[in-house]
């Protein structure tokens, strides 16, 4: 397990500078948008990570309800918290990109609206979790909310932007289900998404381990 974790860290440490080099130097700028278009290689992976956080929160919540292991409650909270950070970054980078391409910071485009709703769901979860403080069923009740939110997420991220016309370009596939991107841009985007996925798992793994340790220390102090 330790060796696997070591390989994972090495991969992340080596690949992250590679992604920065590819996105900022190697890939040519998009036609008509100039160097500013390079934000794409960070905005899309960050948005993808916020979806990953949603899935992780839903998964840990299901595990908590079925196994009743206190660690999954902590994991679900961590996943939701990282989701909040990633959603905020998605909204901010998206807004910068919107300003560059459409000369407007915000226009309630279906994809922009979906990102804001995801952010609001995370804020709502944190409000719910805080208001259930001191209740024995806190973990289970908030886990149900995360499961309902995870079920709503595909409607927001994958269905609504495809029902209504959007200024936002299709992320990977166009309406004909074909790549609409130059090969170097595509390679950079997919590499960046892969490395950001590794980064997400690195962060969530670290947070989960720290949360379990913190809980154990608290219990030890309480016992003494």
């Amino acid at each position, binding site marked *: 397990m330790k060796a696997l974790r070591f390989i994972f860290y090495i991969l992340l440490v080596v690949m992250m500078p590679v992604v920065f080099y590819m996105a900022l130097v190697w890939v040519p700028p998009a036609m008509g948008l100039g160097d500013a278009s390079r934000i794409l290689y960070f905005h899309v992976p960050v948005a993808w990570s916020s979806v990953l956080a949603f899935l992780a929160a839903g998964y840990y919540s299901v595990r908590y309800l079925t196994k009743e292991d206190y660690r999954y409650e902590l994991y679900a909270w961590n996943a939701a918290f990282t989701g909040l950070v990633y959603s905020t970054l998605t909204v901010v980078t998206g807004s910068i990109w919107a300003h560059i391409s459409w000369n407007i910071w915000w226009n309630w485009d279906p994809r922009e609206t979906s990102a804001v709703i995801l952010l*609001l769901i995370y*804020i709502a979860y944190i409000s719910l979790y805080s208001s*259930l403080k001191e209740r*024995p069923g806190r973990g289970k009740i908030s*886990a149900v909310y995360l499961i*309902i939110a995870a079920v709503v997420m595909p409607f*927001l991220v994958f269905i*609504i932007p495809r*029902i*209504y016309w959007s200024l936002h370009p299709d992320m990977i596939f166009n309406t004909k289900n074909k790549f609409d991107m130059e090969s170097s841009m595509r390679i950079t985007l997919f590499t960046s998404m892969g490395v950001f996925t590794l980064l997400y798992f690195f962060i969530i793994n670290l947070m989960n381990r720290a949360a379990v340790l913190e809980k154990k220390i608290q219990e030890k102090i309480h016992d003494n």
Partner: protein
Amino acid sequence: MENRIYKHLKKDILVEFRNRSAVNISFAFAGITTIAVSLASGGIRLDANIQSILFWIIIFFSGMSGLAHTFIREEEERTALFLAIHSIPEEVYISKLLFNLVFFIFIALVVSPLYIFFMHAIPVHFTHFCLTVLFGSIAIASVSTILGAIVSKAENRGTLFTVISFPLMLPVLWIAIMNTTASLEPGAAPGFQSILFLLAFSGVIISASYLSFKFIWME
């Protein structure tokens, strides 16, 4: 099981109509806001888009005051524990869902004619308008039933219900507003893609809620 669900539903309807607080407040809210919006607009004919936004805001807030009430009442009157011992959670969930569906469809039935009358918002595509109102109401009632159960266990119930329900209901409101706009505007009849969206949304939420309800109820 069906017989017990029917008994729970009958009990909820009887208790609600004897007490009448949630029903009265919701219907009064619906009527007053519709008249207030009409009065404030001073008879001006608004765009279809603005008409549908106002229409769904009225429906949403009219329902908000009553939809969580069915679970909160059980907690406040301390009957929740008795119900948890006496019935299986799935029965309770289905009966509360049916109550909320009936309640919200009633709200929509009161608001829609009032709104059409006072705001001169005559739907061009009447079938599409009715289907949007019906399936939009079903979707809102399905989300608010499980969220009502969640907030009944928390502090600051009223405020929390709005905070946690709004982001999950936004997709429904968004689609319903766009659909209502299309049904108010002349031109080709809108497609049924969005109606299917509302139906699928309700189906998924009801399934997830049915499976997870026992974890909230037995706490």
